[in-house]
């Protein structure tokens, strides 16, 4: 069965410090991984997806199939990065295609 685990419910760092939000998954196949973000008073929105291999707002995430991880990283955190971050998984075919399985989320706070 598919599962997404975000071990940290809360994470606090100071501005300018590196930040890493952890995400581990289990899935019997080749998944597609996403990070979604929800800023205060805004809608949940896609931040990045692993197949794009791009950096968004300074964030990157590499899919590590050996460790079944998809950690989100940023070398220098900014105050505006404070938000709730969700890791999500979707299958590439069958009944899991198009369906997202979310982790419980990590609330990131960046202090000035």
């Amino acid at each position, binding site marked *: 069965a598919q599962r997404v685990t975000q071990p940290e419910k809360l994470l606090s760092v100071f501005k300018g410090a590196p930040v890493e939000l952890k995400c581990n998954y289990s899935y019997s196949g080749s998944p597609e991984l*996403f990070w979604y973000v929800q800023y205060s008073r805004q*809608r949940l929105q896609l931040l990045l997806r692993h197949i794009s291999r791009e950096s968004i707002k300074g964030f990157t995430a590499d899919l590590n199939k050996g460790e079944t991880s998809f950690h989100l990283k940023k070398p220098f955190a900014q105050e505006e990065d404070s938000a709730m971050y*969700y890791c999500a998984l979707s299958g590439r075919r069958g009944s899991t295609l*198009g369906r997202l399985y979310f*982790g*419980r989320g990590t609330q990131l706070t960046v202090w000035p």
Partner: protein
Amino acid sequence: SQTIHQWPATLVQPVGSPLSLECTVEGTSNPNLYWYRQAAGRGLQLLFYSVGIGQISSEVPQNLSASRPQDRQFILSSKKLLLSDSGFYLCAWSAALVNEQFFGPGTRLTVL
């Protein structure tokens, strides 16, 4: 461009009363539609999803039901609300066979 609407934005209902939350999508045809519940510390739980009119799949047994009377309309209902139904309900849509989902603004439901 595509937009997704939800209403009402907030709702306070007594235990045992009925519920109807509405979600509509504009600017696209034949979307996949989803209802999630976002509870503090529990992340996003998929409640229902639909790939077409009248086609509803339920993810978890519960006190709620969903209907899709029109292509771009998705309704979440209950005949008798429970205290445990309180939460933040999100509607989302995606294009068929595409994994990226777009979320609505959500409805905050409080059952007293």
